[in-house]
């Protein structure tokens, strides 16, 4: 008997829920995981892309580009992967690549060329910086990592930490998770521009 009562009560509850909520399942929303940022590796069609921020990038370049040049360097990998990678004609065209870095609050940071960054640092670091910049030209299946440089402008509005970046706009300072940033650039694939977006890992 108690089982029958329970069953009736359960049926009534579920029918009420079905009327009141647009969902059929028990609690689908609660089951949906919260996302933190974006995946820092992605295969988009034939294009594989990965991006990461390295707080110790001074060990790579010989100087801290954030402090020395108001530049946020992001290591990016872009290559071809998958069926058809050998037949595809994909380019990273420096004229059309249009890299951007979007911070979590939607602030877009413009990319600087290696030459522009070199002009901001002592001469002795220039050659290494140019050498490590993301290579452009024909893309292959070979995954070489190179660096993109994003301008932290206006000066003084950003304070970069290991995991976060503080952005001051007006009187408000927001502490933004760097993992919730997004790198976007264009690849010319078989003669057409294709936008590629990837999150920033560490």
């Amino acid at each position, binding site marked *: 008997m108690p089982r029958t009562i329970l069953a009736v009560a359960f049926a009534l509850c579920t029918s009420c829920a079905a009327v*009141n*909520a*647009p*969902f*059929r*399942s028990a609690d*689908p*929303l*609660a*089951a*949906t*995981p*919260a*996302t*933190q940022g*974006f*995946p820092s590796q*992605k295969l*988009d069609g034939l294009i594989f892309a990965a991006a990461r921020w390295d707080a110790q990038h001074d060990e790579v370049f010989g100087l801290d580009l954030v402090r020395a040049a108001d530049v946020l360097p992001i290591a990016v990998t872009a290559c071809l992967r998958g069926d058809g990678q050998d037949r595809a004609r994909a380019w990273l065209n420096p004229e059309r690549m*249009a890299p*951007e*870095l*979007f*911070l*979590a*609050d*939607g*602030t*877009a*940071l*413009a*990319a600087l060329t290696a030459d522009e960054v070199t002009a901001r640092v002592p001469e002795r670091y220039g050659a290494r910086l140019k050498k490590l910049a993301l290579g452009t030209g024909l893309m292959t299946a070979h995954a070489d990592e190179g660096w993109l440089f*994003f301008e932290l402008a206006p*000066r*003084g509005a950003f*304070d970069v930490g290991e995991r976060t970046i*503080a952005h*001051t706009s007006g*009187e*408000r*300072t*927001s502490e*933004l998770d760097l993992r*919730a*940033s*997004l790198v*976007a650039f264009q690849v010319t694939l078989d003669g057409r521009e*294709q*936008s590629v*977006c990837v999150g920033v890992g560490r």
Partner: protein
Amino acid sequence: MSSSSLRKCALALLGVVACATPRDHAVMRVDLEHAQALVTRGDLPAAAKLLERSLAPADDDGAKLQRFHAAVLLVRTHVAAAFGAPFLGSGLPPEGAEWRLDARARTQSASPLAHCVAALRWADYARGWYDEVQGIAPNAGGETLLPEALGGVTTRDTLAYVHLAALACFARLRFEDRVEEILAGIPELTELERCDTLLAATRVEDGARPWIYVGVFEHVVRTDEPLAFKFAVHALETSTGAHELGEREHERLANWITRDSHFVFKCPTCKTLADPVLFSCSVCRRPTLEFEPEPRETSK
């Protein structure tokens, strides 16, 4: 310490102080009402500014509920901007004739991607705050916490909107794994009628709809092509005027209908093949959504 560092510290402190002061429920309700009105009439930059300024730490249930709705309104603001009227600047230099203008006269182009990123940030906040506001009534303690327009919607439906908005943004940014995660939590979305009911109930912005249909299309296309056809047609149908899909998505859907699917889709009345540019039969005007699948004959 340099003067710029001092200034930065002072500003940060100001920001912290401003954010650390809990807000009066009545004041916050007025802010939410005003922000809602701004979103409705399309003044999105003003809405975003007001809401970001209004967000404050929540030390009681009422404030928590208001904070949750402020985050959701920020999602709405950025989704409306991403799929309609973007206002956040792009990081790209001006193009063409803009190069020749004086720096002050240049207009920075707006970026829909920037709004997708911002919308997802606020969606994360809203999802994080949902657990603590589920049981709070909008008139808890005899106080009206939310403006009329927000009070009539359940917290659960509000969260549903947040998920749908996130789905549209992830589809726009082509993060298929994230789209899959959201769809796994809302399997009803893969039924066309229930999907439309849900989009209407949660008042998803028109511009985001085609992207939600694209997300569902990609989810079902490997397992159920006749169902995928309906979502493809729906995506193309709703992608008009200011609410366009990208060229790549448009082409993908059109090519799938005419070439890549294992089925051909024909008008049940006159057997005319589906045309991705037309949304009804070119002969008898029957809606394309009613077209029926037949196995495609492969050339030998």
